[in-house]
Structure formats: structure tokens, C-alpha cells
């Protein structure tokens, strides 16, 4: 099967993002860009699917080619065979981006794709819309929050995470899946795969190449109007007695004083 994985580059989510007072936007200058964690799960799932069932894995992203090259190379070193950037600065909303990705997917040489993988959400804006809206705009079935995936009767069967457990959902191909944290971690690149990825080509296409309408790419019915730091809580007392028992006794006194116990 031909598999496509849509990825997004995000600021390293282990770093706390602060507000840049000059621009009113997020201060991202010194934060390493990384591939969105859920997209790395999606890529790993796609790669495992390919290894078990044959086919190839292509990754695609939207944005600036130079800025995205390291992320795409890292995808190429852990399972992807082909990589593309859709160079389009106007796409900002989930709706616009998913429309553009859908259009671009139709133009890639490796397509048509049987399964399109997306992370279930990104760690930066956490909208969780792109995968679902990509499917909607392509008129494809979608299975969200996928934990496991296998081929079944020419289509796929997926284990979908729910609040209380999971569901088994089946869909014909082509289809879209959004991937949540599976039971495994993404693989590390080997020295060899890392070096090989340097030599692999990265394709580019513009919105026009993809045949996307400018207005739909730029559509953003929901827009950020304010970005602010959350209210800060004041820290209270820190207790560090020589004896743990004394620390506990002091803490319990305070709780009792507040009538909390």
C-alpha cells in the first residue's frame, strides 16, 4: 500500500513557551524545531505498517523548504522514503492547511495513497482538526485516535482509543487515520539511515502546483486575536526539615489550619 504521512514542525514541547512582549506572539527564537510528537507516532505506525504489508511511505509538510529540511531529513532517516514540502505561506488555519494538503496529495508521484496518516493533534496549537478536515475535504473516511492498525479485506482495521477503552473501526481504502500515542515509541535513526537521508531528494510544490484555490488555502474562519500568559499562582511555603516526620508534621499542621483535613 502507498502511505502518506502529513507532518508539522513545532517548537520542542519540552520547553516552556513564553510571550514575546514585542510582538504579542510566542517567543520561539531559541526553541529547537522538532517534528510534532504525534506525527512521529504516525510515521512510526506507517513505517511498521509498510514493513509488515509492503508499500512505501511518503511524508509531506507545509511551509518554508529550508526551515523544514532538517525535520524532513529526520523523517527520511526513520522510515520515510520520499519527502515533500508544499511551499505556501498563506495557509494558516487547520481548514486551509488540510485543504492544501489534500490537493497536494493528489499531485505527488507516489500517489494515489491508500492510507493518509496524521498525528491526532499538534503539541503547539493542539487543535486536533487537520486530519479530520483533510478527510472531509477529500471525501474520505477517517478513523481518529488510532492505537493500532492492520490491513483487512483491502481496507484497514484500526483500534481507536476512547474515553473508556477502545473501539474496533474498519474503513475501506483510501482513507485517513489520525494517530495517538501507541504502545510503542518511535524508532531512533541509525547512523547509516541518518547518513543515507542526507542524500535523499526533497520535492517541493507550490499551492498553484497542487492546483489549490488561493482563497480556500488562505481561509481562516477562526483566528487568534489575543495571546496571553496564563495567570501565575503564588508559591507558598517550602518545608525541608532534617527529619521527614517533622516536615510532614509541619505540613499537616498547615492543612489542619486551613481546615482541609
Amino acid at each position, binding site marked *: 500500500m502507498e502511505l502518506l504521512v502529513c507532518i508539522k514542525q513545532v517548537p520542542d514541547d519540552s520547553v516552556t513557551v513564553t510571550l514575546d512582549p514585542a510582538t504579542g506572539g510566542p517567543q520561539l527564537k531559541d526553541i529547537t524545531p522538532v517534528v510534532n510528537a504525534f506525527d512521529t507516532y504516525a510515521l512510526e505506525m506507517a513505517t511498521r505498517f509498510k514493513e509488515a504489508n509492503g508499500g512505501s511511505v511518503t511524508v509531506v509538510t507545509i511551509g518554508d523548504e529550508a526551515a523544514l529540511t532538517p525535520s524532513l531529513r529526520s523523517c527520511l532517516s526513520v522510515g520515510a522514503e520520499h519527502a515533500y514540502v508544499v511551499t505556501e505561506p498563506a495557509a494558516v488555519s487547520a481548514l486551509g492547511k488540510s485543504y492544501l494538503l489534500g490537493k497536494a496529495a493528489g499531485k505527488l508521484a507516489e500517489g494515489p495513497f491508500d492510507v493518509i496518516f496524521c498525528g491526532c493533534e499538534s503539541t503547539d496549537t493542539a487543535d486536533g482538526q487537520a486530519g479530520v478536515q483533510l478527510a472531509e475535504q477529500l471525501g474520505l473516511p477517517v478513523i481518529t485516535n488510532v492505537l493500532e492498525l492492520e490491513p483487512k479485506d483491502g481496507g484497514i482495521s484500526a483500534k481507536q482509543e476512547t474515553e473508556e477503552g477502545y473501539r474496533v473501526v*474498519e474503513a475501506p481504502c483510501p482513507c485517513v487515520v489520525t494517530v495517538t500515542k501507541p504502545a510503542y515509541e518511535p524508532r531512533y535513526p541509525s547512523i547509516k539511515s541518518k547518513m543515507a537521508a542526507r542524500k535523499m531528494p526533497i520535492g517541493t510544490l507550490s499551492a498553484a502546483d497542487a492546483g489549490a484555490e488561493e482563497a480556500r488555502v488562505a481561509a481562516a*474562519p477562526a483566528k487568534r486575536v489575543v495571546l496571553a500568559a496564563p495567570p501565575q499562582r503564588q508559591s507558598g511555603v517550602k518545608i525541608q526539615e532534617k527529619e521527614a516526620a517533622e516536615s510532614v508534621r509541619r505540613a499537616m499542621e498547615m492543612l489542619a489550619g486551613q481546615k482541609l483535613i
Partner: protein
Amino acid sequence: MQNHGILVYMECADGQPVKAGLEALNAAQRLAAQQGGKPVAAVLLDSADAAAEVGAYGAAEILSAQVGGYQAECYAAALTELCQRYEADCLLMGSTRDGKELAARVAARLGAGCVTDANGLSEQGWVRSVYGGSLLETVAVEGTAVVTVRSGSFGKPEREEGRTASVQEETVAIPEVRAVIRDTVKELAEMVNLEDAEVIVAGGRGMGSAENFAMVKELADLLGGVVGASRPAIEEGWVPRNHQVGQSGKIVAPKLYIACGISGAMQHVSGMSGSGYIVAINKDEDAPIFDVADVGIVGNVNEILPLMIEEVKARKS
């Protein structure tokens, strides 16, 4: 056909509205008030039984349709059709996994702006967390909005016994389902109600093992509270994921929150910093959890917790 203004999809389980749905109803009523008293209609799909309960919680009207059991494609089609039929300005629902999927689907079909995980409403728009809870963004929607409401953010609306709403039976077209749900498995037996808990005792990576994590449960039980957890504890498998507090779990605001062996990553802190009184136990005196704690105990949590449990037992007897 009349404009119903604001629709709320009332997610139900076993014939009862789920909490996330009721919070969405509360958010809808706040929005309605902000916009000059627009009517709020609740949508029930395959859950006509819940009408009385939803009425008691204050929905002005109930639109009820039979869709033939949960299939995301059918529910999305039904909600889209009802939004179009009643020219809704805003469709709200709870931020459950299903809710978020349905919202994105319906928004794509309507060409509407979609806001997921809203945790507040200001004059300018819907407020939500970004960058793992480090920052808050306000999102303004032009035209129709589809919004999911973060559990624990808006609270449930007042319930008035005997209050009822008129129920309108709706007929909607049911599409042929492509992504078919074949089986539903409930793995997590117990219901975890972190949002309503007055006391939460939560454990993190610092607990070190499933055996040690049992102390968190013991203390929670003693205090009549609920067990919470940070993401690492979930990933270690010490406690089921429905106990998770934080960005990818529940937003909570108990009177007392005891964080045991939790370092205090923004991801977690943003889910519990609204608590009334926070106690943190961590061996690392520089752990960020102490920045939000009213009382911080620097020490080995596996040494502190047994003593704390003994103290509580002693005070109880």
C-alpha cells in the same frame, strides 16, 4: 424554520447526558447571555430518554433525532444537517474524543471556524490553551462557529427539578457509513470523576513503581478524594489513563490537590493550577511544582507519603 441561534450537541452515555455535554450547555448559556439572550437548543441523538434531564439543566428546547447508534459519520451528518436547518450561529459540544472529531467534521462540512478545547469565553472570543498550557490564546470566529468545551472549565449548569424543555422530533438523512465501528470495548471499569472531586491526590514519575503508587490511592481514600496522575505515571502503566490531570487529561480545581512525585511540567500544572490549595512533595527542591504549591515538602515521596498516611489516620481516630 426559525433560527435557533446556539445548538449544543448533548453527548449521552446510557441515556444520561455526560458531564462534558452539560458543561457545553453551560458555556452555551454564557454565550447566549453575552449575545443578548439567544435561545439555546440541545441536540439529542439516539438519546430521547435524556430529554427530561437536559430540560432540568436549562436547555430552552431539545431537538431529538434517531440516527441508529453511534457512528461518527452519521452523527456528523445529523449535526451538520441540524445546523443548516436551524441556521445555527454556534454549535457547541463537550471536548471528548468523539466531540472533537465531530466538531472538526461538522466545521469542515459547514466551512465554519472550529475551536477545540475552549476553556473560557471572553468578549473577544473563545479562550484556549496552546503550547502545552504555557500560553492562552483567544480565538475569534467569523461566521458559524463549532466549539468544543474543555471539561472542568465551565462547570455544569444549575439543575432545577421539574424544569422541562419542549422536545422537537427531527428527521435527518443517514448516510452510508464507510468507517464502521465494529466493536466497542470498555477497558476502564471504574468511572473517575476528577472534575467534581474536592480532594485529589495525584502521583507522578517520582513514585517510582506501581507498588509505591498504591500509596497515592491509600491517601486519596483516607481523605475521601480521587486519584490523579501526571502523564509519565500513565505511560508507566501505574494507573489507567482516565486518571490523567493536565493538558492531555482533565482540568481540575479541587479544594485540595496533593502532588506526589510530580515535577510540575507545564503540561500538568496547567491542568491543576486552579486548585484551592496545593501541596507538593518532591525530592528536587527546584522542581517547578513548588512554584505553584501552597505547601511544598522537599523530600523523598516514598518516605513522606507513609508518614502522611499515618498522620491522617491518627487525626481521624
